[in-house]
Every structure is written in C-alpha cells, then in structure tokens.
C-alpha cells in the first residue's frame, strides 16, 4: 500500500544553547553535598476549566518535583447523553446530534452517521452524493487539523500559527455557511443523500480556498517544522511504540505517527477511496513531533483528495430516488397527492429499518470513528446508537504517555493527541 514516511532531520537533542544552536557542554561539576530535600509527592489538579486542557477535561497529576508520576483524567463534564436521546428519535432526527459531538469537524460526523444507517438499510447513495461527501469529509479533516495546529502551537508559546490557521478556518466556516446555513452545527446529511445539493458558485469558492491554503500551510511549516523551540518541546516527548499504540487503541494520526500505516480509508475503504491517489503519512518515533508531521502531511493529502474529487464530480441527482426514503420537493408535496402522502408518512413515521446491526468505521480527523446502529425489524428509531469516539480511546492513553515527563510536557502531550471533549463525553 502507498505509505509515506515523514521525517525531518534536525538536531535530535532537546538541549538548546544561546542563539538557537546546539548546547555547549555543561558547566564543570562542583562538589557540594546535596541538601536534604523532602520527598513528598504533590497532587496537582488541572482543569476542568483550563485553556490548556482543550475543553472541560480535568487531569489530576501526582508529581515528584516537576516530574509527573501518574495522571488520572476525569471526564464527563460535557456528558449530554446523546446516545440515549437518539433512542427516542427517528433516523433523520439524529443527524443534528452528530455534529454537536465533534464540533471541530462536524461534516465528518454527519456523513459517518448516515453512512452507517444507509449500510444497515441497504441503501446505495448516488455517485454524486458519494463524491460530494468525500469532498466534505476531506474539507473537514483540514478544518479539524487546523484547529489542532493553532491551539497546539499556542501551547508551546507560538502565537502566529494560531492566527494563520484560524484565518483559514474562517474560510471553511464560510464554506459551511454557504452550504448549510450554519457555521458549526451543519446537519448537512440525510439518510439517502444530502439536505441540499451544492449551491451555485460553491465549488468556485472551494477552489479559491484550495489555491490559497497550501501557501499558508507552507508558511506554518517554515515557522514550526525546523523551529528549535518547537523541536525541543516535542521530539522524544510522549513517545509510544507501534505495538503499544495498537494495543492501547490509538487510531488516526496518533497511531500512524508510531509507524503503523493503519488508515481506514486504505484498510477498510468506503466511498471508492481505493480509487483515489493519496498517500498515508507514517511517522517513526511515535512522539509529539511525529504526530505534528503526520497531521501536516495529511492536510496536504486532503487538498489533493479534494481536487481529485472535484474533477470527478458527476452530475445527476444527489438524493436516492425512492419516495420511501427521500422527501419530495416542496412543490410536489403541495401539488401532488401521492407526494404529499409520502411526505406525511416520512415525517410522522420515519424510515423503517430491517432487523440487524451495522458498525461503520470511517477515518475521521482524529482517528477511527465508528457508528454502530442496532435495529429491530421495521424500527424507525434505533434500539441502540453507539458512537465509537476516536478521542475517547486516544485520551485514555495519556497516563501512559505522560508518566515520567515534566508537567509542561504533559500539556504538550495532551495537545498533541488532538482531543475534542464534545465527542469524548457525548
């Protein structure tokens, strides 16, 4: 399979001397007896309201001096019981719940949910719909990675990348708004298609973004990739081996940074991803710096994927032409008796599902996002709707990653995992 090893050789050491060069040898040792120091462990509470936790996450750290000996994350502050709510809603009514989970890449969640329901019901969406969803999912991969880039850079003291990346995010917000009317809570998909087809001029706006975005990305590369401070703060920090990364449930860029070329788009392809030409960036050391490189490269791959999808975007309808699944147009519902009945039945009853269950994993910006739906024969509401949130499992590794590092490194490790608490707590 096509995979690409990302590497950037700059001095490995984290020591830094005056002027950004390598550190000089340490000062001559001096012979003074070490004073008797207390060895008491200290408990430090970070969060739940703290900018460096990237959400309402609470970390209870046990410290030996400034070294972290153990971390206990406490989550659940944002718990909204979306999965329970879903059991009381029809299939299409659940879509608005999905974008409130990962509000940093809402379209990926919208698409993942309806893909799973469509698979359960055996609905084949149109070719145009598939390509449009690929465009939207790749766009939101960039969207999610950009937020990670900005906030992570701020955590190590670099303010400029934050401004650069948020400028670009604003452009994607505008694209969201033009497509769905909302900037964050997009709710763009429906079972069997989309809420609406792409509006006029949207592809032109997208093309404009794609033309300008790589320039910004290379500017950030210049600012961070060879930056001695950034390298000192990230290389060798929070490293994990490939076997451990799999066993601990890492997915997404975090797993690939450890050298495992597992990407759901390649290994369990959906929506013809096997016919697109793209590479999966793979790191070597599994540390924060490799995670950074993987995500940077992924954004470039996403740009190329969107361009490929735009060039193959077929015409035709975007929704399946089945009156039992897709709502009729407003004009039809108001003028044609049969359409009105379908409209009424779809709104009041919903779409009946066959008995069974379906687990649909897709590659979200943060890792493997699995939507698991269970239904009994003829159910218009799920018996169980389960979201396998990638950041939930990724965050559970933080006690292992942070052990033995400094408190300041814990902040960097937490940032490098790219978590979003909305989907962790659900």
């Amino acid at each position, binding site marked *: 399979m096509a995979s690409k090893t990302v590497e950037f050789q700059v001095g490995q050491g984290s020591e830094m001397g005056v002027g950004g060069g390598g550190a000089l040898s340490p000062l001559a040792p001096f012979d003074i007896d070490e004073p008797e120091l207390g060895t008491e462990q200290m408990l430090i509470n970070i969060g739940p309201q703290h900018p460096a936790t990237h959400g309402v996450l609470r970390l209870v750290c046990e410290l030996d001096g400034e070294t972290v000996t153990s971390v206990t994350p406490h989550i659940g502050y944002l718990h909204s019981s979306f999965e329970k709510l879903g059991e009381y809603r029809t299939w299409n009514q659940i879509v608005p719940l999905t974008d409130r989970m990962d509000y940093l890449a809402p379209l990926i969640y919208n698409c993942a949910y309806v893909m799973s329901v469509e698979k359960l019901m055996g609905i084949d969406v149109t070719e145009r719909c598939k390509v449009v969803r690929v465009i939207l999912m790749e766009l939101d991969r960039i969207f999610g990675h950009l937020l990670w880039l900005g906030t992570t850079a701020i955590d190590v003291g670099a303010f400029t990348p934050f401004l650069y990346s948020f400028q670009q995010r604003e452009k994607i917000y505008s694209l969201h708004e033009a497509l769905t009317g909302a900037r964050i809570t997009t709710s763009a998909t429906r079972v069997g298609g989309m809420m609406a087809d792409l509006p006029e001029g949207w592809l032109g706006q997208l093309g404009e973004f794609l033309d300008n975005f790589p320039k910004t990305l290379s500017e950030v590369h210049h600012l961070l990739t060879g930056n001695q401070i950034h390298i000192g703060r990230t290389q060798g920090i929070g490293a994990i081996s490939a076997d451990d990364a799999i066993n601990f449930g890492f997915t997404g860029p975090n797993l690939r940074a450890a050298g495992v070329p597992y990407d759901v788009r390649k290994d369990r392809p959906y929506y013809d991803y096997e016919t697109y030409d793209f590479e999966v960036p793979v790191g070597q050391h599994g540390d924060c710096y490799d995670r950074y490189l993987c995500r940077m490269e992924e954004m470039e791959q996403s740009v190329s994927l969107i361009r490929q999808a735009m060039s193959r975007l077929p015409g035709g309808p975007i929704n399946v032409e089945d009156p039992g699944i897709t709502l009729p147009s407003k004009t039809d519902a108001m003028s044609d008796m049969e359409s009105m009945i379908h409209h009424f039945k779809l709104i009041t009853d919903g779409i009946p599902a066959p008995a069974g*269950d379906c687990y649909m994993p897709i590659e979200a910006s943060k890792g493997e996002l699995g939507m*698991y739906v269970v239904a009994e024969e003829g159910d218009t509401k799920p018996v169980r709707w*389960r979201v396998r949130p990638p950041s939930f499992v990724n965050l559970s590794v933080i006690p292992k990653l942070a052990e033995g590092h400094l408190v300041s490194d814990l902040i960097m490790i937490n940032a490098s995992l790219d978590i979003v608490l909305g989907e962790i707590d659900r």
Partner: protein
Amino acid sequence: MADQQKSDLDVVADGPLESVGEQALIETSSGDPSLHPSVESLLEKFPDEVQRYQIAAGDQWVVWVGPDRIHEILTWLKDDEAQAYDMMSDVTGVDYGGGRPVEVVYQMFSTIHGRALRIRCPIPLESMATDSVYDLWKSADWLEREVYDLFGITFNGHPDLRRILMPDDYAEGHPLRKDFPLRGRFSRAEQTRLALTQDVERFYSTEDLKAGEPQEVDTDELSAVPENASDDLSGSDLDDGEGL
C-alpha cells in the same frame, strides 16, 4: 400536577421504552461460515460456545458467544496466529429491554490479516457480570468502564472499574438501560435538590484525589434530603412527580 395534560414529549420521556419482545432470541444462523476464516475456526474450536452467527449489513460478520468462556475465546482470537485480532476497536453494550439479556459487543480488527469481526456476548440479567479483556487489549480500559457506567455490567478483573461519564456518586442507576426513563429516575424536584445541596468542594479534597483508587460513595448520605430543602421548592413550578 400529575393529572395535567402532558405533551407528547413528556409521555415519551417519563416512562421506560416499550419492550420489543423476545423475537430475536429464536433467530437462527445465516451465511456460509467458510467465507470468513475466523468464524469457521471458531465453530471448529468452540462448537458449544458459539450460539449463532450472521452476516449483518451486507458484509459484516457477527458471532454470538456465550459468556462462560468469553475470555478464553477472545484470548484465542488475539493470540492465535491465523486470527491475530490485535486491535479492539470498541467494546459497548446493547439493551433490548423486555427481560432480554444485555449484550456486550466487541468490535475487533486484525491489522495483520485486514479482517474485522464482531463478537456479541449476551449477559444474563441475573448475573450482569463478565470477564474483563483489559489484560488482552489496554484499549478496553475506558470502554469497559463506560459499559459499566451506562449499562451496569461488572467486568471481573478490571483494575479500575468506576463510573466514567456520569458522576461518581450518581445514584439513579445506569442510563442506557431500557428501563431507565429519559429524564432520569428521580423527579425533577429531587434532582434539583440534590444538585443544590451537593458539596462541590468534596470532589477536590485530598482523599478523593488519590489517583486511580475507586472512590467509595455513601449513597445513604446522598439520598437523604435536608428537611428545609422542600420548603425552598414548595410553590415552585417544578414537577414533583413519581420518584424512584
């Protein structure tokens, strides 16, 4: 207040969901097991444990396995070289209600063979316990905690089994069970009372911050309502409906 006209949402939200009956229990196997090497080997190696198998959603293989030897079977699925399911993507639960067993669902993937398999393990309502797979896949740590929290299934051998999404002292039960009403077991008034009378500082005391140790919660203390609390709320528009 109870005999007032209720909106549609209240009707749905107050009571437990209707049970869906026992229709799925008599379902039989379907599909050709020789198409999936792991299902075929499972049938050969553990013929008594495999209850049934199915192809779901077109191409997803599901195997129902009894709870008695579930740990042994999962160990074999992970360690046997021909299976090598090294990635435990998800552990979750499914409750159908109506007295049917709660099922634990394992989503596994083998990065070596590129195969996926779903194991479903019905847990009888009398025991509500099964073996933890934390010793096999560390990713099961939080996933099992979540199933324990939301479904009330105990995982024997889990090193740190405590609530994860709900508060440690949550006394209303396990929310994703079908007999759990959408708005909780306690009345709104009692929920408000508990929220107003809880001591926030309690969660930050040094004893509670002992990292990694399960916290012991005195449920008697929580459900005891201060006498003056009801005075504060009397005359308010909170629905003091049926409690637990």
